[in-house]
């Protein structure tokens, strides 16, 4: 069982076209809803029953998020889709935008209907020009067909949708930074509370969901929340897109049920390249702590299993590394990323990410000191949980994971001023 939800139309020749999408029953769920067959409350109930957890990485239950907004509350409300895919290792939303844009649009309209919002924005990272053009083409088609805009299909319900293009900032994947960015500002996350459900885009009630989450909605409505939930396992409903990359033969995006063994996913992805040993796996994007290969091979791809191993399923970005890789080098690169992408507002993250990077870099370059590893751990503890958004935690966790599982490589670097692996 694969490619049942977000990638279900990938076998079509040009699945991004309205006519092709409709040939598979596209926009039928929207029609049912607008015809009054399904009430907004029922939509939210189905999403809740689907056990759909936010696919961006945090895993917050989508149905619950929607239920925080009262449909009857007066004034403008917004649906915002987060297509600012930037977590290193993640490349699934790009495929949705390219190959199934109409399903995302349909999901957003349904979300708007459920919470009583008449306007949506899809925040697409600025580098995704081709996916943006695809998605914009789909919007234009949908508007032309009366599926977007005023009085959709004569139902009296209005919903319009626009793209906001990012400008190159990882932190805008954080929902409130993303809102700030749409408001024409630097993408600096807002302190919460207040949460977007109360004070969101332009200060109005807003739901923000990941591309994959919203794209799943029409299928959930069509087949029922229960059906979706049962694809997965307890606490991890549905199927999920996994972006798998690294030293493997067939990197790509695979939509498989939650709870699928990692070994199976690796096999789908063609197995290890050159038959090398799976040394380490980053299971949920670069912010999730690394897991040693042997341990990973025993895990299943769902929230609880990965969490039980001390990491996170995150965005489902799986980076597989073979035994030619030096973990110090890998961590140096990851730490540079957080140093580079910290927005700069919170002291621990602004100062701490640079500190982490510089110490790891020193170790990598043969300048490490014995006390550095303890220092690194201490600095990560002082960043994690002390910042406005999760970027601080994201910078801390990879360091903690690497030191937990591959401490010997760091010690070797410090002691011998060179790499254990020989990379």
């Amino acid at each position, binding site marked *: 069982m694969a490619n049942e939800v977000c990638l279900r139309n990938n076998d079509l020749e040009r699945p991004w076209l309205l006519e092709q999408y409709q040939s598979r029953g596209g926009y039928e769920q929207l029609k049912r809803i607008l015809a009054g067959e399904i009430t907004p409350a029922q939509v939210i109930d189905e999403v809740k029953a689907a056990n759909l957890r936010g696919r961006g990485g945090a895993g917050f239950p989508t149905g619950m998020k929607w239920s925080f907004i009262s449909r009857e509350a007066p004034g403008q409300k917004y649906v915002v889709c987060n297509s600012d895919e930037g977590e290193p290792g993640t490349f699934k939303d790009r495929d949705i935008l390219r190959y199934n844009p109409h399903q995302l649009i349909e999901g957003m309209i349904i979300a708007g209907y459920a919470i009583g919002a008449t306007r949506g924005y899809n925040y697409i990272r600025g580098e995704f020009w081709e996916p943006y053009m695809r998605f914009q083409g789909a919007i234009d088609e949908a508007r032309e067909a009366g599926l977007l805009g005023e009085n959709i299909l004569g139902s009296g319900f209005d919903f319009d949708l626009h793209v906001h293009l990012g400008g190159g900032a990882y932190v805008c994947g954080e929902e409130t930074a993303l809102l700030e960015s749409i408001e024409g500002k630097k993408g600096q996350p807002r*302190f919460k509370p207040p949460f977007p459900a109360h004070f969101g885009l332009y200060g109005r009630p807003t739901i923000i969901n990941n591309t994959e989450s919203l794209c799943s909605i029409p299928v959930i409505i069509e087949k029922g929340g229960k059906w979706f939930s049962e694809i997965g396992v307890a606490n991890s409903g549905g199927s999920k897109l996994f972006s798998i990359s690294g030293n493997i033969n067939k990197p790509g995006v695979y939509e498989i049920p939650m709870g699928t063994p990692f070994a199976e996913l690796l096999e789908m992805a063609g197995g290890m390249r050159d038959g090398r040993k799976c040394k380490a796996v980053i299971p949920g994007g670069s912010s999730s702590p690394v897991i040693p290969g042997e341990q990973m091979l025993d895990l299943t791809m769902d929230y609880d299993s990965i969490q039980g191993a001390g990491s996170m399923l995150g965005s489902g970005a799986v980076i597989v590394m073979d035994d030619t890789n030096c973990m110090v080098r890998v961590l140096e690169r990851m730490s540079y990323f957080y*140093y580079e992408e910290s927005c*700069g*507002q919170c*002291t621990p993250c602004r100062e*701490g990410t*640079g500190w982490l990077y510089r110490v790891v870099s020193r170790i990598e370059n043969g300048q490490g000191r014995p006390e550095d590893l303890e220092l690194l751990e201490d600095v990560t*503890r002082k960043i994690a949980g*002390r910042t406005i958004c999760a970027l601080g935690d994201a910078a801390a966790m990879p360091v903690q994971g690497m030191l937990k599982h591959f401490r010997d490589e760091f010690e070797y670097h410090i002691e011998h001023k060179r790499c254990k692996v020989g990379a």
Partner: protein
Amino acid sequence: MSEDQTVTIEVDGREIQAKAGQMLIDATDAAGINIPRFCYHKKLSVSANCRMCLVEVAKVPKPLPACATPVAEGMKVQTRSPLAIAAQKGTMEFLLINHPLDCPVCDQGGECELQDVALGYGDDVSRFVEGKRVVMDKEIGPLISTDLTRCIHCTRCVRFGAEIAGVRELGATGRGEHMTIGTYIEKSVDSELSGNMIDVCPVGSLTSKPFRFRARAWELIQRDAIAPHDAVGSNLHLHVRRNEVMRVHPKENDAVNECWISDRDRFSYTALNSAERLDTPLVKTRGEWKESGWHEALTRVASGLKEAGSDLGVLASPGCTVEELHLARKLANGLGSERIETRLRQGDFRTAAGAWLGQSVTDLERCSAALLIGSNVRKEQPIFGHRLRKAALEGCDVSFINPLELEMNYAARQIVTPPAAMAGEVAAVARAAGAAGPLIDQAEVTERHQAIAERLKAAPAATLLLGNLAQAHPDYAVLLTLASALAKATGAVLGQLPAGANSVGAQLVGAVGDGLDAMLAQPAKGYLLMGVEPGYDLWDPAAANAALTQSGFVVALSGFRSESLEAVADVILPVSAFAETSGTFVNAEGTWQSFAGAVSPKGETRPAWKVLRVLGNLLDLQGFDHDSSEEVLAEARQQAEGRQLDNAPADAVTECRLVDAALTRIGDVPIYAVDALVRHAAPLQKTRDAIAAAIYINESEAAKAGLTAGMQAAVTQNGTRVILPVTIDPNIPNGCVRIPAGVAGTEQLGGQFGEVTLEKA
């Protein structure tokens, strides 16, 4: 949840009361529980980014920022638990890793929030062995120095600019560790409140440029004072070292200036030691100025005044203290003269009114509709400007009727019209509001008049304010009459924004007379000038010069040497300036605020009240036996007892004197030209707001006169011809030319408003 609801929370085992929804740090501050902080500032929005105020809240696993955590009933907070302390110390370590720790050469040293908190939360030795960040400093003008390597990115300065100053000048550009505070491009920070950024900066990143490297914080003694340049009455702290005012800070007073002061009040102290200060008596003998001893000078003055007798005129700055004005009036009265005037820039004395704010200072920010007539409040009384801006941001509908367009820092309706048409505009609003009477009945009402009138009528708290441009208007009495009618028709409070620090006090002690015409039209036998430079401080310098030149005897009490004074005076007595003398100002809302001298008088100068007292003795006048300024004050207060101020004009005046000329001068007084102290404050004179004498004129009007930008042109007013450069200014309406008053180059010109002609020089 109502704002007034009280909740009980427990902080460090102690029960405290807090307002529901209040941020935790506000509650702990009120209870005297100290939580370290850098980005939090009670007058600025919450940014919660420094992470210094992290505390432990029961049932929350992570430490929470006290500045952004609303209190809730029963909340249990630990500010000193291991979790809280670890979080606070962690933040402190991060703040210090890239901080230069150059406290010994930092002006903030000794009064630095980072230094203070580091003492409690920092470690002795840094574990950071990497290279520290260095940030290039930026040149942002004559008032603020930058040392951006010290910056801890709290963004208070940025928020101050956006929220209080109302102009986004400083920003935080770049990302992450590379984020820096600055203007990004080479540009000065020009807000009239910019100096407050120095105060809000918790470290030595933004410091006072005039104070730079002049003293250490711990060498300074703090003395209280009241700001001398406008009718706000801002409370000040003077920081004094070895009998010298080293700098000026705000003294917090929520009823007056909150924790802010204008740059004018902050930096004018720099004039105290200007080379132009006068510190010995000067006596003119056979046209030659000679330094003299006090005795000789006073004897000469006494005989001159005696000679003048009842034909004495006293012209005193509205920045003189209650004590000085009281004694000056008493002196004049003792000599049989009733002629004393402090309304030196008033353009029309056809009616009398007790000019005051008409309400409290804090009322300004609570008003829901305001119409300002002839006022550039932002530059005339910057702190009142700030209060009104606060009101505007809360939805107050603010409108202006002015002879020139203002640069606003909030959205307001501006009716810009030549001076001669201002009365008509006010009349139109009055008519729209349902008032009747001469001028009003003929007024042509348009939509905008209607809109203003409706807002004023509908507002629960509306106010009409006449500013300095209205007071200087030749038809001020008409404007006041119309405004009074409009106030009656709308139920709005009628207020005035007096010019001087003691304009209101001057009225209460009777230091106002029949006006400048009565004083100058016929030259008096003798004049006593107090804090007045005839070329700069009077409505019509040309007329004043003429009268003073023809007078038999002119004595001036002055803090500064002044060509325009030396041209007309016979004796100049050096008097102590601001900070050197004790006294009292009554601010616009009528609050009496006394202050002591903070430093001893410079050189041979003497406090003016003492000089007047001695003169009283030398003239054998009764009742000049005071031993202290407090005694003078007590007497003055007694005299003032029962004197009520009322902005309503005594007589209705509806005859306009200013007729529509081909070209009318608008002679506003720029913010840094209002008095001698400010005019001699070098740093202020280098700012963008130090408006130079020039012909400011719009493009089409300039073209009519064949003038272009930068060209020298001749202005003729009442027969006096002056050459000034031309500046194109789109804010000036047709038929008008702005030639500021109070600035060098305009000493010979006539009234602040009046007909002028232009020609190529």
